[in-house]
């Protein structure tokens, strides 16, 4: 505790605060620009961290992580182009809200949910990093495999109206994740002799293509209609549409609490990631709601659920890093580099040998939360104006940024090809009702799913009876089956209710 107080003294200096602010602002802007994101921010900042003092460098990287996670909600809400897969559930309700003229309300809710989730999760990290990490070690490959399978089924079943199509999309995601050199035998799989595919398809250009480029094509096709709508709602006179009302706060606080918890747990476990966290939270909120059928048409709770979990994952993914030296996310891996660069070794020794340094980082993380609130609050007002710009002027800029974001990942034109190929796939899956987000989540956790599956086969010696020694795995196995059954039943009921309503409700395009 004393260390933490001293930590604040170290962080609350103009230089460090400046770099935290630079990190948060840069992350927020990059996150808010479609096509750019965390990956871009990190790529441009690694060289910078060489020249900064350790705390400032690390604070800046953490700022980028937090800022981009919150910023990616902006493009998701305003343009329906989530910067990262983890913000895709934000778009599900955020974009309809923006189209109803309530962009500022959605942006504010997204920001508040982000900051609260982020702040609480940081506190969890500070209080419980060491013990939690020890518990996380109990989760071996067998357990992890069951948890991954459960998450994928739950998300696949929930996204979209048809569970069948959701599961097909998820399976496709896992399939695409198997492309590349297989880690055990080094046998190339489905690479068609292309060296570029040896390390598999890169997520960044794939996500940019599916989430942003494909969406821009669809909007390009509906440009006139979208612009007319924008004219109509741009000047909403109701002040309640621009802020979060007390009634909404009351409804959203429990949602944010749950989202934070889900995000924090998901962040600690290896190999799940922010997109799983935000989707689980969104799904859980939808299931718990009294009006699940209204989700997807502009429910403010949807935005709160997704964003709180999305941001809660960031600090808790540092738990395994600080306690054990194992990176839980991409940013955490980069952070190791930054720490090592300044002569620090993340892991159990860091707490003993460098307690002040750890406290400084904690203090910087808490400051970053507060700065995020300020930067985001100032920024969202500005970004909300984007909605007035005619869509035909937005598309060229977005496509251009997408190309830069995709190219920077590997510095090769191959990334652009990947982006375009998946843009095409994204376009058709959008039109045919296959959830492209489920696809992406399948792709993200696919490598871990396969790896843990194969590890489990070896650890269990190909003997199903040995599963008896893994009660957590059995629990999640049962949960998976129950979920499939439950979702199938409630989907059927939902369809029946909509069929009954469809006489009264005017036809909507989805």
């Amino acid at each position, binding site marked *: 505790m004393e260390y933490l107080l001293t930590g604040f003294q170290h962080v609350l200096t103009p230089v460090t605060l400046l770099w935290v602010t630079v990190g948060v602002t840069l992350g927020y802007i990059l996150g808010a620009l479609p096509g750019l994101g965390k990956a871009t921010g990190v790529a441009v900042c690694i060289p910078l961290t060489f020249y900064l003092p350790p705390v400032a460098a690390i604070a800046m990287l953490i700022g980028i992580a937090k800022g981009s996670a919150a910023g990616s909600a902006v493009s998701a809400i305003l343009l329906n182009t989530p910067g990262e897969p983890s913000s895709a559930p934000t778009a599900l309700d955020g974009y309809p809200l923006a189209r109803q003229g309530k962009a500022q309300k959605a942006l504010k809710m997204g920001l508040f949910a982000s900051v609260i989730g982020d702040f609480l999760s940081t506190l969890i990290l500070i209080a419980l990093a060491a013990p939690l990490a020890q518990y996380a070690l109990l989760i071996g490959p067998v357990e992890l495999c069951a948890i991954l399978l459960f998450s994928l089924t739950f998300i696949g079943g929930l996204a979209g109206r048809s569970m069948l199509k959701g*599961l*097909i999309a998820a399976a496709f995601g896992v399939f695409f994740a198997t492309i590349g050199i297989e880690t055990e035998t080094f*046998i190339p*799989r489905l690479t068609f002799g292309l060296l570029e595919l040896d390390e598999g398809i890169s997520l960044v250009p794939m996500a940019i293509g599916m989430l942003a480029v494909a969406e821009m094509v669809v909007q390009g096709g509906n440009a006139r209609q979208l612009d007319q709508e924008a004219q109509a709602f741009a000047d909403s006179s109701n002040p309640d549409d621009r802020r979060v009302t007390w009634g909404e706060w009351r409804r959203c606080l429990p949602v944010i609490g749950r989202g934070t918890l889900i995000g924090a747990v998901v962040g600690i476990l290896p190999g799940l990631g922010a997109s799983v966290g935000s989707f689980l939270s969104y799904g859980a909120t939808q299931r718990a709601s009294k009006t699940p059928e209204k989700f997807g048409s502009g429910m403010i709770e949807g935005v709160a659920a997704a964003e709180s979990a999305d941001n809660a994952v960031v600090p808790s993914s540092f738990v395994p890093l600080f306690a054990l030296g194992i990176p839980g996310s991409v940013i955490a891996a980069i952070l190791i580099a930054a720490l090592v660069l300044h002569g620090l070794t993340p892991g159990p020794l860091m707490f003993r040998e460098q307690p002040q340094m750890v406290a400084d980082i904690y203090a910087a993380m808490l400051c970053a939360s507060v700065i995020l609130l300020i930067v985001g609050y100032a920024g969202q007002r500005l970004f909300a104006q984007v909605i007035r710009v005619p869509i035909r002027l937005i598309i060229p800029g977005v496509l251009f940024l997408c190309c830069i974001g995709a190219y920077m990942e590997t510095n090769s034109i191959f990334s652009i090809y990947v982006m375009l190929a998946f843009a095409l796939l994204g376009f058709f899956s959008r*039109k045919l009702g296959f959830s492209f987000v489920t696809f992406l989540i399948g792709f993200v956790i696919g490598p871990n799913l396969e790896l843990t599956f*194969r590890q489990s086969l070896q650890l269990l010696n190909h003997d199903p009876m040995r599963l008896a020694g893994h009660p957590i795995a059995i629990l999640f196995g049962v949960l998976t089956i129950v979920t499939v059954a439950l979702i199938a039943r409630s989907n059927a009921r939902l369809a029946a209710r909509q069929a009954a309503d469809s006489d009264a409700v005017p036809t909507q395009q989805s």
Partner: protein
Amino acid sequence: MKKADFVSGLILGVFGLTMLIFVIPAQIETAPEGYISPRLVPNLTMILITGLSALLMLRSLRGIGYTPMDDSSVFFRSEMMALLKISGVFAVSVALFAWSMPLLAGIALIVGTLIALGERRPLVIVVMPTGLLLVVWLVFYRLLGTVIV
């Protein structure tokens, strides 16, 4: 949607079978003794996809879980046009990138999309690419000192 589901189920089913029978055996070698086959997981996903798409076709044939409004078409003319136009712009831009310089590719991308989407004001067509490229150049090359291309 019903008809679209049937067709997409058919296509996916055929795709899955093609993968299982031809592509995976041709593109993934078998592992030596003692290894878990690298084909295992790709095969499993493809079996799942083939099975699920068969189910999808069956359901769409019998009309389970569809509402009357699902009969409407899923593809709109204007969206397909936008797809074609933007694909064309990207084709030109990628070609320029490969055989000419990246700067031209960037200009072609922005200007091409603007024109394809119906922007005709000369001022916008000149100012927008100049502005965007200038900003990118300033931020990445000058401010951050990283080289993109």
